[in-house]
């Protein structure tokens, strides 16, 4: 099993002189007894696997759900339906990237949807009401996201306010500004410039419609998966969330990392505002107000720990898709909408229970 394979590998990697010391029981064993040579029970083995490969859990849930729903409803397992599911969850998924970055630092952002609404309302106000060039309106809208992220970051790092409270406060502030700027009124589809709704348009593959918004969402996941995996900044995000003091003593400027995470999250949310306009076609100040918690749901079901330092960005994509699959599958199977909510609740608690257990092993 795990231990056995690892020993085999070391025996081939090491020079002869060192290899010979391995089997001798009295030789300095160094860090050899990772598994202590002890037999792991099947459950322990699965837990170890899940600890090192956090995507296993959500992937298993998704695969099982896909199989079950495909059997139950013949309309479920079509390409068209998958495209539809992805369109339904893309906004939550993209917000989820921002949320994941923040949760990995052991923070949380309750204001993501409020920032998104504010950013899209600014885009609409500038482009439609004030008649500015639409490219300019789009850029300024994204910039609003960046500024809001920076404000959250400053409150967390400079005022030392826990992210939960900081973003609970800014949730109200940004939402109020959103209503103020929009006067509480929507911009109807006919008045929204084409560029702002472009992400809702699409192309045909095998007779199925895919949108540019879906493509953008997937590309953003690939980009941030790369950043978290393969850059020092990504490593530092994990380090800050895992053990703040260790990160500091290792020479990581933790406040700088936190600040940059909130700003980048703001940038992602600004882009999501554009995606939201494309998704619903109009600009509404109340369109995705429930997405604050939905984004956290996607992150948690995706296996990222709310305690920070543990998780994968692709888990959040899986988490968002799982939510979409259950919604679609249950409604196609004829269940009332309330059972979707019910199931999501169970998934959240199950995901966090697994995380608690895994963290205990890791101690």
């Amino acid at each position, binding site marked *: 099993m795990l231990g056995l394979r690892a020993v085999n590998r070391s025996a081939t990697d090491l020079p002869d002189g060192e290899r010979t010391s391995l089997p001798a029981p009295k030789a300095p064993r160094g860090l*050899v007894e990772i598994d202590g040579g002890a037999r792991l029970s099947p459950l322990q083995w699965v837990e170890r696997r899940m600890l090192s490969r956090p995507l296993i859990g959500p992937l298993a849930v998704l695969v099982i759900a896909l199989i079950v729903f495909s059997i139950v409803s013949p309309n479920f397992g079509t390409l068209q339906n998958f495209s539809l599911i992805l369109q339904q969850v893309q906004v939550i998924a993209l917000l989820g990237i921002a949320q994941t970055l923040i949760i990995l630092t052991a923070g949380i952002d309750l204001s993501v949807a409020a920032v998104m609404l504010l950013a899209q309302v600014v885009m609409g106000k500038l482009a439609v009401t004030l008649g500015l060039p639409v490219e300019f309106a789009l850029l300024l809208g994204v910039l609003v996201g960046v500024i809001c992220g920076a404000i959250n970051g400053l409150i967390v790092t400079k005022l030392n306010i826990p992210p939960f409270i900081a973003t609970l406060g800014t949730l109200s502030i940004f939402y109020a500004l959103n209503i103020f700027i929009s006067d509480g009124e929507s911009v109807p589809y006919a008045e929204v410039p084409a560029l702002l709704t472009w992400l809702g348009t699409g192309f045909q593959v095998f007779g199925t419609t895919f949108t540019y918004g879906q493509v953008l969402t997937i590309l953003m996941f690939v980009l941030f998966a790369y950043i978290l995996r393969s850059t020092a900044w990504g490593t530092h995000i994990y*380090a800050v969330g895992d053990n703040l003091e260790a990160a500091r003593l290792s*020479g990581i400027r933790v406040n700088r990392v936190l600040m940059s995470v909130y700003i980048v999250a703001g940038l992602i949310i600004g882009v999501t505002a554009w995606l939201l306009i494309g998704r619903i076609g109009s600009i509404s100040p109340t369109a995705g107000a429930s997405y604050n918690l939905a984004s956290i749901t996607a992150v948690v079901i995706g296996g990222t720990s709310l305690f920070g330092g543990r998780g994968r960005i692709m888990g959040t994509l899986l988490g968002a898709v799982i939510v979409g699959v259950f919604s679609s599958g249950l409604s196609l199977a004829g269940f009332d909408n309330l059972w979707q909510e019910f199931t999501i609740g169970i998934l959240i608690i199950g995901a966090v229970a697994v995380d608690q257990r895994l963290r205990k092993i890791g101690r």
Partner: protein
Amino acid sequence: MTTESTAPSVPRSHELVLEGRRLVKRYGHVVALDETDFEIRQGEVLAVIGDNGAGKSSLIQCLSGAVQPDGGELLVGGEPTALKSPVEARRLGIETVFQSLAVSPALDVATNIFLGRELRRAGIAGSVFRMLDKKRMRQEALGAMAELGLQTLQNVGQSVETLSGGQRQGVAVARAAAFGSKVVILDEPTAALGVKESGRVVKLIKDINSRGIPVILISHNMPQIFEVADRVHIQRLGRRIALVETSQVDMADAVAMMVGATTPEKLGLERAS
């Protein structure tokens, strides 16, 4: 190099790698360091002992850049230097293994060893795409572990949380040894370990020292100190009351001085400061 305040018994040929002169550290009304002196020579293992509240931790924090002294001066390689942060100390080759270990449990061994000084790929992959050179970091991490006789660590890609206490200590020490070109500071490295694992850490200290790197060892474990240390710095009430060779005193005398039951003078030792 040797100054008035250091023990006259120190021969002038000994180069001091790290030196503190009349260091003062206050926390409110509490004086943690009361003009204490400190020195460590090239190539030696120096043990620092002292009762609780003697100022050991404050001293070590000053030496590792974690806190800044309120008075006195610090010399690195004979040059007066202000260590403003652990980062700065590390840049000068002073590596500290803190009692809390300062490791990140969810990250793997290699990532922990290179935390805060990651290596990037050469060429465009590194400069434009900021891609880390994980392969090289893993190889070098493996090398760092092997150099300390931890060669049986098979997988530097496994997370630190899957390791035992002694193994984590091994990672922290390997990190310090890999980068500590000037001096390695170990703060209570065996306090949380069992007998067997403590023995392994003692061996690590000897291994680091055999590479010519001086080691500062803060410990309460007298047998261990007398096994590895060349000299003992005895801290009491915020000052260094004695700096003696381990061959000059026995454990009982060292402990007696540490708790104030006797003085260096009564034992016929020269007062260190």
